[in-house]
Every structure is written in structure tokens, then in C-alpha cells.
């Protein structure tokens, strides 16, 4: 299952994958991912994928397992650390981006996700 706030990812993969689309922020995606991990879903991609810092891009896509199991402790550590890391960044910058940049950030998020889906 893909959790994303990126419309480009949603429109490209909505027919092929189970997608949870959030009309929200990068942090909202991380928090929803954490909730799902707490329910027993396993994290399949790193939530801080891409070296683009959380205060630069508004978009984030994360892949978790389709099947719910027992609590995956590694997934819990990774998502909790990711949220802590996210909160270290000053978010002033996000306010400053234009439409062209938004489209580029969506594309980077999509290609990083694609690098995981291709395997």
C-alpha cells in the first residue's frame, strides 16, 4: 500500500496499487504511516527517502505492506526516528515555493518511489 500526498503518484498508480491519498503535509504522511505501523503493517520503503530535506519538499510517498501482521519493531524505530528528524527542520522554506517547483518536487518523489516499485 502506498501512503502519499502527491497527486502525481496517486494518478499514476491508483489503478495498480492500493493507495491511501492524504490531502495534507509531508508530516501528515509520516504520522499516518506511523499509525499504520502501530496497527501491524510493515514499512517497505524508508520514510526519509531522497536526500531532499523535509523542509524543502512538501511531498512524500511511503510504501507499507498490504497485509497486517504482528507489530514490526524495526518499522516502529524507523518511522519514529523519521518523525523526530522531520521535526528538527525549520519549515519556513516551504511557504516560498512556486508551481513549477511543486511539479518538480512531485516528479522527484515519484521517481524515488518508482526506484522501489521497479524491483
Amino acid at each position, binding site marked *: 500500500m502506498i501512503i502519499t500526498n502527491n497527486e502525481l503518484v496517486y494518478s499514476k498508480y491508483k489503478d495498480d496499487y492500493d493507495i491511501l491519498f492524504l490531502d495534507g503535509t509531508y508530516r501528515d504522511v509520516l504520522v499516518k504511516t506511523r499509525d499504520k505501523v502501530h496497527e501491524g503493517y510493515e*514499512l*517497505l*520503503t*524508508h520514510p*526519509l*527517502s*531522497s*536526500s*531532499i*530535506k523535509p*523542509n*524543502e*519538499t512538501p511531498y512524500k510517498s511511503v*510504501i507499507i505492506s498490504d497485509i497486517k501482521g504482528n507489530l514490526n519493531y524495526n518499522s516502529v*524505530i*524507523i518511522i519514529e*526516528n*523519521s518523525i*523526530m*528528524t522531520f521535526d*528538527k*527542520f*525549520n519549515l*519556513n*522554506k516551504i*511557504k*516560498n*515555493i*512556486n508551481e*513549477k*517547483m*511543486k*511539479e*518538480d*518536487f512531485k*516528479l*522527484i518523489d515519484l*521517481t*524515488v*518511489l*518508482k*526506484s*522501489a516499485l521497479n*524491483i
Partner: protein
Amino acid sequence: MKLELGYVFIKDIQFAEVSKVENGTLYVNRDEVKALILEDQNFKSADVELARPGESIRIMPVKDVIEPRVKVEGPGGIFPGTINKVETVGSGKTNVLKGAAVVTTGKIVGFQEGIIDMTGPGAEYTPFSKLNNLVLVCEPVDGLKQHEHEKALRFAGYKVAVYLGELARALTPDEVHTYETPTLVEGIKLYPELPRVAYVCMLQSQGLMHDTYVYGVDAKQIVPTLIYPTEVMDGAIASGNCVSACDKNTTYHHLNNPVIYDLFDEHGKTLNFVGVIITNENVYLADKERSSNWSSKLAEYLGVDGVVVSEEGFGNPDTDLIMNCKKIEAKGIKTVLITDEYAGRDGTSQSLADADVKADAVVTGGNANMVIDLPAMDKVIGYPEVADIIAGGFDGSLHADGSITAELQVITGATNEMGFNKLSAR
């Protein structure tokens, strides 16, 4: 495998009618370089500028930095699998224009990375301020897709570096250094009393603008493998990583990987340098497991006592770093990690996105969140208007007088995780 590196020292760079190297000056025919760039029909125009140490020049946004080298003897050419044929490199003789570099700039996407200041406080943070730089400003044709633009710019940099390197082919180097790695069997016999050490080099491999190429192969598609350290000196690893300016490895870093050169320096004195393991930093967590399993297995197979692990980038690769550390330590092999920190502006936050008790020997390249002030320069090469949207910049980063207040992460190479820096806290 044995390589002789011949350093031709470059102390100045100038434009001239004929491209050549004479008395430590690199003369460049500007039109020939432009024509070389414009062979690629993805570019509609190209400009070439000079930036020397101490000049009041700011270069931004920097995409890659490349050292000109040429193979004088032995198989293959520099950048095998990209510019030259896929021959195994790393043996014979290679000449280097030491003190010169090609710098590529460009706006591939709407957000930007990387400043090199040639003077002032910013210059202290980047090793590239000490070089005589030929800076390429290439304009793509309208509508060129980001993937094609990134590739075209990357190849423009390699092509110009190879063109300059060629000028050193017939020269007698000022200094020659010899680097040799014997076979595993011979190596064990050489220094049985010294600890055996390998180097695990982690390569960025997450997707568009986050890629590294090994003999032309996208590193996300490799499983960890062994490479002779001298192959790296001939350009077997090339950077396509344009993101996270402060802690990405440019092609210059790979060619001059200080971990490799320092391990060679200590070889036979304090340690026995066995070889280099390259691994990747993929997005998929199962890939991380596979790659770290594999790098630890190779370290075990080499029978080493210790490894040095260097990271590239921020966030996601912290997990690869810690997985490599834990699994290699579990084999009874000591690890030393090289990373950098995002510890918040006051340096009090947790530095990495992952940690483990086994990571008890760690070298840092510095805190990328630290805020610095960069005074205005007389000249800006590239695109000054992007300062507000540069990584580590923020709303109001670019002041009216051209000065910039931003986090250290705006500066190319500032917190490099191979340890390729000039500053230390010592």
C-alpha cells in the same frame, strides 16, 4: 593492480587561442569548450567562465565538480562505461591536472543546490575554492525533460574534463605517486603482523538526481562488490548526485577519495589495506537488508580486522550506515563510520536518523544545520536568483546587497562524509 598517478600542478587558469598547459598555467580555448558542450543538441547555448582561488566570485547552483585526468599508459580511459569504453581501468599510468577542476552548474529542477565561494568565510568550507575552476553554464533547449537535462549536464562535465585531461598526456608530471594492491593471497603474506583493513564505500542510489554510476551502471542495480582502489582513481565511479550539496560526493571526491589515499599512506606502516567494497543506498528497505548482508559477508570473506565505512547523503542512508555497522560488527570486525550531522541549528538535536550502540567509533564531517553568513561577491557565475530556494536556504536567505544567510548545507562539499574537508575541530 598498480597505478602511477602523475601530478601536473596547476597554479593558474586563463583563456587563450590554444588549449595547453605551460609552466603551471592551464590555458583554455573557450570556443572549443563551448563547441564541445554544444555537440549535445539538448543544449541551446553554453557559456564558460573562470574562477580562481581568492577571486570575489560565487558559483551557484553547482551540480558536479570533476578533476581532469588522462590515461597515459595501460588499458582503458578515464570514466570507463560513460565516456570511454568499458575496459578495466586502474593500472598503468594516469596524469592529473592537480589544482584544476571543471564545475557544472544548472537549474535542472525548480529547487537548487550548491554554492562555491572563491573567497571569504564560505570559501573555508569548500575544498573547491582552492582550485582553478573552469565553470560551465549550459542552457537546455526548451521543454527538455529533467532526466535528459541531468544526463546531458553530467556528460558535458565529463567531456570537458576529459578534453582538459588530454592536455596532460605528453607532459612530464611534477610528482609521481604509485599505488598498488596485490592479490588477496599475496597481501596476507605481506604484513601478517598488521591489522587487515577494508573500506566500505556507500554510494547514493535513490533515483533522479540521486544516482551514482559504476562503470556506467546505475549503482542502485548492483549488489555490493569489490573494486580495486586504483580503479576509482581512474573514474570507475562517477557522480550523478545533484542533491544535498554539503554531503554528496562529487566526481572529484570519488577520484580523490581521501579514505583510499590515507589507507594507502598507512599501508605497511600501521595497517594492511586489503581493498574496497562498494555498496548502495536504495529506498526499498529489503534492498538495504540485502546490500548490508552482502557488504558484511564480503568483509568477513576478506578476513579483515576492521573496516572504515563512509556514508553519502542525509536521512535514508543513515539506516544503511547503521545496518552496515551492526552486521559487520556482528562478524567480529571493528567499524569506524564517517558521516555528518543534522543536529539542528544549535547542535543539540540527535545527529542521525538512526543509531546503534555498536556505532561507537564515528567521525563527523560537521553539522549541516549550522547557520552561516556569506557576504556578497563581485561576480556570480550561474543563477543568483535561486538563493532563496537553495537547499539550506530559507525565505529571506538572499539579502538585497547579495549576501546570503543560510545553513551550512548550501555549500558544496562542506560536510563531506569521506572527510574531504579543510576545516577540523582539532
